[in-house]
């Protein structure tokens, strides 16, 4: 793993215990300039994770708790008339941060949701005719809770597609949990985290992602995955071309975190779960305990061309 990235993952791992694979994926998502959707119960450490990332990278961090009465202006910001200067003055909303945690996104109305999602896609905000660039890097970690449906507006399938990855943190394993119970306050630990790299270094790493070599063998493999997802009779949704692009980009980022200058099938497989699962299975229906998940079956059905 890339020294700095390894260090980053390790450092976040000291705060979020027993979740190294997930942290690795989160960092991959960040490097690939994607956005992340976390589906989980409250109290699983989503905010702590986001704060730890922001701290370790020296990013400006803001958190938006979505509610059903929230308006787009509440996240984007408002122009207020300044009497003294006799002009409008823009007060940027919480969206103008480098790392935005959008908590319980599905509580917001579709209008507010789409304002956020548009900003995520465009990386800029248009307000009253002026276009304002969002800071760079710009990384959104949205969370939603599928468990409680009352009063929520589930993200439509087309919007889900805008998140590069969907993750579930899940319960910590017993030893980690024990350590959590006995250890010191997480918030204090986060506050004490030292940055691993600067924002500029992060942007450099992000720029390096597209340069990771994708061989024809990998492109063949990705195409096979796409085709297989479309020809499965039990699959109502095939993967869109955007899913393919995302898969390649995420695999490149993963390869970078592994300190490799080329993408291997393993890279694709490692990120496939989080990149493809929400596109294949937008409902987020719970999988049976011994049944393999859809995407896993999909991957197992595709032999590699050697």
């Amino acid at each position, binding site marked *: 793993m890339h020294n700095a990235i390894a260090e980053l993952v390790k450092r976040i791992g000291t705060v979020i215990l027993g979740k190294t694979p997930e942290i690795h994926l989160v960092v991959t998502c960040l490097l690939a300039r994607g956005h992340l959707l976390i589906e989980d119960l409250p109290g699983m450490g989503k905010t702590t994770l986001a704060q730890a990332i922001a701290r370790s990278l020296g990013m400006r961090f803001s958190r938006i708790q979505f509610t059903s009465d929230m308006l787009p202006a509440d996240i984007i910001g408002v122009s207020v008339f300044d009497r003294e200067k006799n002009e409008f003055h823009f007060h940027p909303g919480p969206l103008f941060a480098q790392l935005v945690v959008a908590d319980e996104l599905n509580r917001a109305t579709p209008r507010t949701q789409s304002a956020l999602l548009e900003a995520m896609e465009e990386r800029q905000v248009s307000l009253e005719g002026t276009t304002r660039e969002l800071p760079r890097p710009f990384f959104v970690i949205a969370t939603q809770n599928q468990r409680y449906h009352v009063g929520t507006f589930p993200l439509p399938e087309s919007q889900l597609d805008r998140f590069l990855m969907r993750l579930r943190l899940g319960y910590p394993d017993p030893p980690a949990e024990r350590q959590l119970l006995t250890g010191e306050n997480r918030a204090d630990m986060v506050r004490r985290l030292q940055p691993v790299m600067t924002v500029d270094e992060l942007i450099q790493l992000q720029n390096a992602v597209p340069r990771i*070599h994708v*061989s024809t*063998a*990998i492109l063949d493999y990705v195409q096979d995955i796409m085709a297989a997802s479309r*020809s499965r*009779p039990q699959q109502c949704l095939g993967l869109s071309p955007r899913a393919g692009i995302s898969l390649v980009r995420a695999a490149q980022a993963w390869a970078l975190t592994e300190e490799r*200058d*080329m*993408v*291997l*099938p*393993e890279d694709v*497989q490692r990120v496939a779960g989080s990149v493809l699962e929400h596109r294949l299975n937008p409902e987020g229906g719970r999988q049976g305990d011994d049944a393999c998940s859809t995407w896993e079956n999909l*991957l*197992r*059905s*595709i*032999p*590699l*061309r*050697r």
Partner: protein
Amino acid sequence: MSGPQHAVMPLSTRALNRMKLAFLFAVAGQVPHLPFWPTTMAFVLLAWRHHLDRRRRPLPPPGARLVLALGACVVVYLQFGFFMGRDPGVSALVVLAAVKLLEVRQSRDFHLMGYLCYFLTAAMFLFTQELPALLFGVLQLLTVNAAFLQLYAGRSRSIRPLRGASGLLLASIPVAVVLFVLFPRFPGPLWGLGGAGGEFGVSGFSDTLQPGSVARMVESQRAVLRMKVVEAELPPPPQRYFRGLVLWLTDGRTWYPGRIRESITGSQRRARGGVDQEIMLEPHGQRWLFALDYPVRVPPGSLVGPGNVFRYHRRVERPIRYRVDSRIGGMIPEPDLHPLLRRMALQLPREINPGLRDLVEQWLERDSDARSLAERVLAFFRSAGFTYSLEPGNLDPRDPVGDFLLHSRRGFCGHYAAGFALLMRMAEVPCRIVAGYQGGEINPVDGQLVVRDADAHAWAEIWLEGRGWLRVDPTAAVVPERLEYGGRLNASLDEMAAGSPEDRSSVLRRAMAEGALARAWRWIRDYWDVARNYWQTWVVRYDRYQQHGLLSRLGVRGLRSAGKLALVLLFMVFTWRLTRWLFRSPAQRRPDLLERCWRLLESRLSRGGMSVEPWRGPLDVSRQARRRFPDQAHTIDRVIQTYIRARYGNSSEPGAGKALLRRVRKLKLPRRSKA
């Protein structure tokens, strides 16, 4: 251990669409032969089904389909009034198949639909056996088979159904040809065509002659018969009289053949022939056969009737081919005339125009000899201002012959023959009318003589006591060129008959000259005629005799059934081989060097008891293998790293593959320790 159950192939939209196309073709093949309603109904139902599918609407319920099926039967019944026979049978098949199409949901219905399409193709052949019919039939077969291929290809996108179906067809041609040649042919039907008309219905020849009736035919360029002369010279154009039927009786307006017992026949059998012809006759729905005048030996299966005509054993309802021997020129030698025939040959209508009586009286005063009388009549035709015209104008319906001979004097072969015969009979000379063809053109492509409807002709024969019948062609007296150029001149003959000799030749030149377009058209027609002739000879009319001839020419005449069977089996094996060759898998894509390295490594690992799952990436495999073979861990890792760099890396090192292959070959892993 019994085998597993078979899962049913799900019916895909693409397969269904192909089947719809196949059905469209199958019905389209029936359009020219069936009435309007059944085929239209089938098209409408097909369009409806397609509409329902496109809109994803449910198919009509069983009750509605039942009503439709009953409605279809009513349509057929209203059209025909009965259900038996070919036309109503095929109509019912068409509409009921269309109703069936409305309930195709599973592969089972799909099969039934396809089989109905096969039947429709066969049904089309009952109506027409022309070459285009076969081509269209083959197209139908291809589309049905392509639909089946599409069904069984499933969701596989690499199948090209039409190509596959063409391959199947191509491979099946050899065995089909051998079967066609060798399969025994039986004479005659097991049962009749059941109320179905034949393939004719266009031809103009009826068995009666009214002076004007020929005019309908002379416009038509349809070929009636083709003649090839075997081992002899084709007679010159003026001798090309094709005898068809003899008309004995008249009521003053129409001439009839009359009914004569078969036993009263002529004595021509004893005469020697000279021109052996092979004639291919298009169907005309009557029994008579045509041959160069006069036929002496007739083909088996036909009867000789009085008047030296011969007839087929049944109506000619499809093209037939026969050989006949004729004697050209001279008279039909017959020593005496049967009294009944004499009476018939002298029969006169009840009322005869008194003007004609006066005319004949005048001639009889000078001549009594039949021949001189005939000459006198011909001279009358030549000199009394008679003209040849296909539009003779209206003649007095009560006495058309008298009107023609005395007043209008415009007419064509039918008028002249009828007038001549009447005059001869009034002069007590036995006379009869012969209807047939005169002329014809030689097709330059194969040298066969093609006779067309336009060559229809009528002439007369007079009886010379003690010698026989003599042909007299009164039309020739008016327009001699008719004999030379046959029916091609018809349009110009009016003009020609009226003019002077100089005018005649210029008109003739004009008539025979043709533009480039006309030449091209003639060229196409000639080739088409020949192709059709071969088609009719070798395919449509391929019967016991043809088979016999062909087999003896091929030298396998003496082949017993077992031999034939063996030959067919041999060709079946050939078909099998041919199919395997046509659909041979493209030579196994030769794996590149890297892939060979990987496969070799895989097999080494597998011999060591480690199974490499096909979806596992190289790093995972490396990890797995290192755990399994800790002693070789380093080597394995190096091999796989090299492979990874070569396969997935950016830079390609030359010779990396070969080095890798050597290294994998050297890799020694312990044999399997655990099952």
